């Protein structure tokens, strides 16, 4: 084992994490996650961007912290159930240049990243810039004239419109790695926060004269959640670490499979955590105002938001040499 092995964030990454955490607390971001069908909080999004949170993904700003910073920020945004196209924004910054990239980084342009062939566009009524992911490639899409508003499980209004994809953009593969890292980090951040709240509840609420946590039927599933989330979060951080190791192509290849695994692992672990936490909070957990649902529905929403689906699975199966075509 390398003497230098270190899975912790460094000081800079911790600093940006604290700044984002403070910002979210000041703006009571988590409370807004309970609302449905609200207009997208553009001002909040711009203010977040003003903290510089989107710069780390920009290839021309290596000083901004790179993928590890993206990972740290996304975890923190997940902890606060921050709304909006976070992974899509990081993804866009990798493939866009010039004014378009600046507008996205500064929070002035909102990105919608959809899957090829789909007419359901995340934040489609609000977005200024449309990207379409098709396998390993990303193309710019023409801004549709009007998108029909579609209410979604996560409480966000998306849009229905047919997009015409333009030419494929360069650096798509790198962008999709970043998107997977951001998604995985966000999901694990959100689920960890929920798991902590649930553990607190289990440590204090009593039934049958004992705290809930004293029942193994309650404690063990929560322990499983912690194991799954730790693994997923470490995968995301490891993927980011490899991504930032720009020295070799093999590091990028490794980042690609680690990020694919992180995304899949985080989806499974965060959804599993959401369900386990609902179960432990029981009655309180199923109320709209309770401590779980605004997080569980957000986890479900992010887990189904493009990019996603079978692509990551194929990356991993190809890596282990299981027949079929290379993706």
């Amino acid at each position: 084992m390398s003497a230098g092995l270190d899975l912790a964030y460094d000081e800079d990454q911790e600093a940006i994490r604290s700044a984002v955490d403070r910002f979210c607390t000041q703006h009571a971001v988590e409370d807004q996650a309970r609302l449905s069908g609200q207009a997208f909080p553009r001002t909040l999004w711009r203010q977040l961007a003003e903290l510089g949170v989107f710069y780390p993904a920009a290839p021309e700003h290596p000083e901004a912290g790179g993928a590890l910073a993206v990972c740290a920020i996304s975890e923190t945004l997940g902890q606060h159930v921050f709304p909006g196209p976070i992974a899509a924004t990081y993804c866009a910054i990798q493939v866009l240049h010039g004014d378009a990239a600046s507008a996205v980084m500064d929070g002035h342009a909102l990105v919608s990243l959809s899957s090829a062939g789909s007419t359901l566009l995340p934040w489609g009524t609000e977005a200024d810039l449309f990207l379409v992911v098709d396998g390993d490639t990303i193309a710019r899409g023409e801004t549709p004239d009007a998108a029909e508003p579609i209410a979604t499980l996560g409480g966000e209004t998306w849009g229905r419109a047919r997009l015409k994809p333009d030419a494929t953009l360069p650096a798509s593969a790198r962008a999709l790695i970043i998107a997977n890292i951001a998604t995985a980090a966000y999901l694990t951040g959100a689920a960890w926060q929920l798991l902590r709240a649930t553990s607190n509840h289990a440590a204090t609420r009593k039934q049958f004269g004992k705290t809930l946590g004293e029942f193994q039927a309650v404690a063990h599933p929560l322990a499983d959640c912690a194991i799954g989330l730790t693994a997923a979060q470490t995968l995301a951080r490891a993927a980011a670490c490899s991504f930032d190791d720009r020295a070799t192509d093999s590091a990028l290849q490794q980042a690609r499979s680690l990020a694919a695994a992180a995304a899949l692992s985080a989806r499974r672990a965060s959804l599993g955590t959401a369900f386990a936490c609902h179960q432990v909070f029981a009655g309180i957990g199923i109320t709209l105002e309770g401590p779980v649902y605004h997080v569980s529905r957000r986890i479900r929403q992010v887990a189904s938001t493009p990019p996603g689906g079978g692509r990551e699975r194929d990356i991993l199966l190809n890596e282990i040499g299981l027949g079929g075509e290379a993706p």
Partner: protein
Amino acid sequence: MNTAFSKDELAFQDEVREFLGDYRELDGFYCQGHKWPEVRAMFRAMAEKNWLALSWPKAFGGMALGPVYEFILWNEVAYARAARNPLAAGIVAQTLIRYGSSAQQRDWLPRIRSGEIHFSLCYSEPEAGSDLAALRLRADKNAAGTHYVLNGQKCWQSYAQDMDYLWVLARSGTQESRGRGISLFICDKHAAGVTVSPLPTLDGDQLNEVFFDAVEVPLAQRVGEENGAWPMIGEALADERHIQFPPGRVRRDLEDMVAWLNANGLGADPVVRQRLAELTVQVMETEMLALKVLEAMVKGVNATVDAAMNKISHTLACQDIARAVLDFGGPEALVSGARPELLWRQTITETIGGGTSEIMRSVVSRQLLGLGG
């Protein structure tokens, strides 16, 4: 061995299906609160056929037909997604038949049988959920000894906003007496001092908190002995086991989700097919466990363990079906108002209401396997 229904039972099933033809669009199973006037009207129409009293003894105007008929009725109603079985005709009526005074039987049973009045179950409290014997809502006799006075709070009451009466468990003994100090009351929901306050839930429906502030309940509305409620509610629950979690609901979930996957072009995906095959097996297992409960009811043997197994299998199957469709359906499955996302939300509640999975597993591990837990 015989796993088939008799000719008469099958004829009844046909009759129920024909009846439900008129209620195909009702959709009152998930968010009954949104459809209560229509559901109530359907119960009235059922009452005209005396279907709310299928298993009641003839002496109380019932049809004395036994559990298979009730199972068929409520299984078909669940499959049709029309409504959940009303508690009044089940738990409430069965308790009154077994433990009610003749005056209570005369006053309440005809109105229940006709579908005129409905009840909400006031058992759980903020500090007494799984541990129901810890409930605190007080019931004390007034000085004149004519009434009980109820003070305290209940929570998570299904449909209390729409029901006419409350079926209330209250503490009449000391707190330490646990299950031995609890009495059962019928309380008019509109009595002075009762406040029903909504708790909106993630399925788009609501549960309720019910507050009792010096609510006077006549002595005549205590059911059974003072401090004698605990065994009665256990038996009443036992009467309902075959209809509480009918497999028709899970079968219908599977069919609806298959239709959605096909409509969205996902039916040919080998990963989807593999998972759906597993879910189909799960649904069939649930159907068998429901038959086990029914068999125990028919034979008049204790169905506690079978019912616990059925509840776990049923509720996990409907969660797994909804969750799989969300996993496969991508963004399209998130669209509000479509079945997948509604089922995803609604099924979260199923492993909690009516006894949590953890408590059900304890029943199986203790009573079937002789273990702790």
